[in-house]
């Protein structure tokens, strides 16, 4: 039988009332002579949402929009690629105007009515193409300075986006960071740990990424936070063997889910608060990424590879409020 000390890394502490408690911790309340637990009212859970119209995977890394106003565009049908675009309203997916380019594994940022997607894979090279969506139609915009695909790092909004990492076969692991101002991309002074096929989110001045590939892949077990100037290693995430997973959200309330583990695929999901990763309830069907929206309190994943491509959507409802409970024998 496991002991609390082994699981938690510390023995049960004695505290006066509820002072200084930590989420998930059991302690002995010396003021009230009771054992207590700091927990959440409800666990995070994934429910099925209605299916997408086009079966595909590898649409966009990063989160675009919300659960009630999401977007999925492009992707790999297996082969060929797709230029189909769909909007999610929290209930149904609706097909809308297609993207200008037919690409997969692109970076993305913004909302359903104001987003930017960039880079991506034709076969097998990557591109610098950038497109903007206004909720109705797509328009071409300024090209990236570095071609990057295979799931680059992305964050921000349509008028203040960040691009980093990515892979450009056969040998280039892209390390430059670029900022988009709504029209053009500008290379930033500092580079990033080369990365692709992971996940990312946030803003130009508070971004994050985790995973996955690159020439230092074995070192990519930590999240990295971007403060507008440089990347800083943050907390280790739990399931570090995965690539091509879904996820997104702001630096302080993001999530990742699923992924390719070679061998097999995983259902594991985690949330990130900017410092720590926490495992949450698994997604229902193991899969690689398709498209994502929202954050750790309310998010969704759509499409992906199971390994066959799927139209399935899953919706995340985050954990409930933190509360202190008294432990009893009943």
């Amino acid at each position, binding site marked *: 039988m496991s002991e609390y000390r082994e699981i938690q890394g510390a023995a049960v502490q004695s505290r006066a009332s509820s002072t200084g408690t930590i989420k998930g911790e059991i302690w002995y309340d010396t003021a009230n002579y009771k054992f207590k637990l700091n927990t959440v009212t409800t666990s995070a859970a994934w429910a099925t949402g209605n299916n997408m119209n086009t079966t595909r995977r590898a649409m966009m890394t990063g989160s675009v929009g919300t659960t009630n106003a999401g977007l999925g565009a492009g992707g790999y049908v297996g082969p060929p690629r797709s230029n189909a675009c769909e909007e999610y309203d929290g*209930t149904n997916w609706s097909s809308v105007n297609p993207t200008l380019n037919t690409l997969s594994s692109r970076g993305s940022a913004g909302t359903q009515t104001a987003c930017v997607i960039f880079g991506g894979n034709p076969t097998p090279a990557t591109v610098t193409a950038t497109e903007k969506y206004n909720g109705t139609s797509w328009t071409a915009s300024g090209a990236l300075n570095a071609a990057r695909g295979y799931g680059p790092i992305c964050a921000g909004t349509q008028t203040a986006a960040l691009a980093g990492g990515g892979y450009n*076969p056969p040998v280039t692991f892209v390390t430059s960071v670029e900022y988009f101002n709504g029209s053009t991309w500008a290379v930033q002074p500092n580079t990033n740990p080369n990365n692709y096929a992971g996940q990312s989110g946030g803003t130009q001045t508070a971004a994050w990424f985790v995973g996955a590939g690159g020439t230092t892949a074995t070192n990519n077990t930590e999240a990295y936070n971007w403060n507008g100037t440089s990347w800083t290693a943050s907390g280790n995430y739990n399931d570090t063997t995965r690539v091509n997973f879904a996820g997104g959200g702001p630096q302080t309330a993001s999530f990742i889910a699923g992924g390719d583990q070679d061998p097999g695929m995983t259902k594991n999901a985690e949330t990130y608060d900017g410092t720590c990763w926490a495992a949450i309830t698994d997604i229902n069907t193991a899969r690689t990424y398709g498209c994502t929206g929202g954050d750790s309190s309310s998010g969704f994943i759509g499409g992906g590879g199971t*390994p*066959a491509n799927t139209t399935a959507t899953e919706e995340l409802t985050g954990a409930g409020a933190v509360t202190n409970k008294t432990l009893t024998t009943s």
Partner: protein
Amino acid sequence: MANYQYCVATNWGKGFITHEDADQLEITGFPGNVWKVNANNKQGNHWVTAVAGDKKTLSEAQAIVDAQITSSQSVWDSDNVEGESADDKSRRLGSRPEDITLTE
């Protein structure tokens, strides 16, 4: 006694698995519309009924999954780009679909 039961059911989307289902049961989807859910569990049995699940034995479910994986492996094997390295193929497509072994 088995811990899980299997069924085949089509995921129709919203309501197929609710947040309450996910919170109270361990439901896992596999290729071929195969679903694994807790056995000897009233809520698990209700979920199978609610989704009009066609119950399968472990071996029947395994055969359905195997067929789907074999098909996905064939698709992966035949998706080649001239001059592409094995590593780059894995980067582009993800790793080759692996066999899945179902358990009770």
